[in-house]
């Protein structure tokens, strides 16, 4: 019963992950400028990858394989934002304009 449940859950996770991956890819194509595309990318990094890996974990159960998957997901979580950050910085340094700075405090009051 619970085995079936776990299976089911893992399939769901994998499918969802896959779906978000594809959506991210579409975003990568559809979105108009570099800085918006970063968000599409982070969709595939922060959503797709964890979901799929989690699904796989449920597949493999309490084994070293799971541990490796854990390492994998931790590593991705540490690196992918760093990569995105470096990329954005480089782009700005390279002369891409992320857009004008809006007055944040005004926003908060409004």
């Amino acid at each position, binding site marked *: 019963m619970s085995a079936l449940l776990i299976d089911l859950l893992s399939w769901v996770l994998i499918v969802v992950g896959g779906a978000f991956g594809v959506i991210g890819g579409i975003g990568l194509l559809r979105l*108009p400028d570099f800085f918006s595309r970063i*968000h599409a990318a982070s*969709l595939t990094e922060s959503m797709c990858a964890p979901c799929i890996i989690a699904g796989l974990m449920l597949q493999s159960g309490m084994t070293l394989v799971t541990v*490796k998957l854990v390492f994998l997901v931790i590593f991705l*979580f*540490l690196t992918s*934002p760093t990569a995105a950050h470096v990329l*954005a910085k480089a782009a700005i340094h390279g002369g891409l304009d992320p857009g004008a700075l809006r007055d944040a405090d005004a926003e908060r009051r409004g």
Partner: protein
Amino acid sequence: MRGPPGRILARRLSFDLMDQGRPLNRQFVNFVLMGLALAAVWLLLSGLLKPLLLGLALISVLLCLWLAQRMDVVDAENHPVWAALRYVPYWPWLSVEIVKSSVDVARRVLSPSMPISPTVFEIRATQRTTVGRVVLANSITLTPGTVTLDVDGDRLRVHALSRDTIQGLLDGEMDRRITRAEGSLQRLGAAKDGPT
């Protein structure tokens, strides 16, 4: 003796490994801890206990430590491993945030009209430790729809996919939670490393 378990362990180690009465050497402790962490990683990844492989493991761990020491990435400051432990209570909330914003971004990407309004804005970070501030910046980047462009002092420059999603950040919910997580171990007497 008071202090976090790691610190207590460390003090013990330092007393055993060094001649009595010497003041506790934090950097050395961090080395030992790092070494143990590396060894653990190796074991978990290889899962083999053949003497040859263990020997190789030892060699590579020592090599890593040597390199770390040459690059002096290991200093008296608290070890990221423990830093990571502090933020455990914060992770679930972050995960939920990620899921929510993912759905939102996905919606915007898929909807034919593509309702996006890219924005750049600044928020103020209230964390005292560098680690804390890094956690905030990375959390922002991790959550789809927002990315940290630049950190200078306590001001974070953020790019968002759409105006509507930034309210949460401006309210500083995430910032507050991180600061709390940071503080949560503080009460247990963590290292006082002021803002840099």
